[in-house]
Each structure stands twice: as C-alpha cells, then as structure tokens.
C-alpha cells in the first residue's frame, strides 16, 4: 500500500516541479498560466492518490471536485485579466507589467 503512495507522490512532485520551473523561466502570461495548471494537475493527482491508497476514495473525490470548481473559477478570472492586460499593453510579456509608470 505504501509503495503505491510513494509512486503517486513521485509523479505529483514531478508535475509540481515542472510547473514551478515553467513559472520561473517563461515570460508569456498565457504560458505562466499553463504552468499554474500543470501544478494544479499535480495537486489533484496527489489528493486522489492519497485517497486511493488509504481506502478513502470518496472523500478524495469530493475534495478533487471542489478543487476543480475552484480551478475553473480561477482560470476564468485570470484569463479575463490577461485579456484586459493585453488590451492595455498590446503585449503578453510579463516584464512589461514590471514598469509601474502609468
């Protein structure tokens, strides 16, 4: 049972690390958001993997469903923000947001 848990933990950690590397190395706003989505996938995998190996799959499923709802809400809001930023700056470069001048 424990072996299976470490197996899922290994893949979840790989997904979260890939997402964090993407967040650190990319400059395109949409790419950054795709990296956040990859991290979210790692978290859902970890939640359900833990529930699976501990015979608590029903609770894990409810938590994952709640997490997906939160994720969708986050995506809708963040993409609306990205479109507004694009309208203002005509670019998706995250470095242009660092300029605080009007």
């Amino acid at each position, binding site marked *: 049972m424990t072996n299976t848990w470490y197996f899922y933990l290994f893949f979840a950690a790989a997904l979260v690390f890939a997402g964090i590397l993407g967040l650190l*190395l990319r400059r395109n706003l949409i790419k950054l958001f795709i990296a956040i989505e990859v991290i979210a996938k790692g978290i859902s995998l970890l939640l359900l993997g833990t529930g*699976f190996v501990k*015979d608590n*799959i029903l609770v894990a499923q409810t938590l994952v469903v709640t997490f997906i709802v939160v994720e*969708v809400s986050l995506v809708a809001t963040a993409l609306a923000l990205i479109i507004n930023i694009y309208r203002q700056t005509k670019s998706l470069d995250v470095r242009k947001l660092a300029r605080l001048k009007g």
Partner: protein
Amino acid sequence: MIVQTALLIGLVLFSVLAILLRDLLKSAISLAAASLLLGIIFFRMNAPYAGVFEISVVAGLITVLFILTIALTKAGDEVRESRAANWVFPLFFIAFIIIDALVMKGLLRKIPALASGAETGTFGDVLWKGRTFDLVGQIAVILAGVFAVLALFRKRDKHD
C-alpha cells in the same frame, strides 16, 4: 500497474510539452491531452466522478477558454522568451526526477504506512452530508468568479 505507469508517464510528458512548446495553441492542446490522461487515471483509481469532472471541465471547458484567449491575443507568440530556458528546463527537470526517485526510494524504507480505515456509503452521501460546507464554499467561489469576470468586462461609462 503497467498501464497506470504508462498513463502517468504520458501525463508528465504532455505537461512538460505544454510548458516547453513555443506555439501557444499546441501548448493548450498538450495541456488538454494531459488532462485527458489524468481523467483516465482517475477512472482507473475507482474515482469516476472526479474523472468525469477532470475530462469534461478541465480538458473541455478550460481548453476552450485557453484557445479563446489565445485567439483574442494574437500577438501572444511574439513574446521573446529567454534563450537559457531551452536548456535550463530539461537540465533541472531531469536532475529533479533523479533526486525525486532517490528521495522516494529512501522514504519507502523509513516511513511506515499511515493508518487507514475503509469508508462506507456512496459518493452522494459523502458529498452532501460529510462535506456540506465545501459545497457552500464552491457556490461562493463560482459567484466570486462570475462577478470578477463581469467587473473585468463591464462597459465603460461615459464619465471614465
């Protein structure tokens, strides 16, 4: 277990591709493929509700939202990414995978299995009776998202 491992490796590969690919559209489709694989993994873990949500909402709705945003922001591909990212990402990722495998192998011997108890009832029982407060939170989050999008896309007044 072999199929599950293959699916998990595919999930990680598509997720890495989604970050590495230069073309935004290909990235979004790669992310959708990763979600699809994650949904299949959920089905194989006896979690059909989570699988259905993952495939319909994350692989479907979120991909559509991403593609819509990419279509609305045409100059998105023109952002100059740092050249170092092309070799830094694979290097660090492979190094992390090796460290990850070693740490998990080490933990396997030291940390015993946590206690677990089998649960009874159905998914509906757990969701509506056990996690009722989560549902209230979900409704609040959905409303917050709707109002945020409405606020961001409202028409400007003449005074602005």
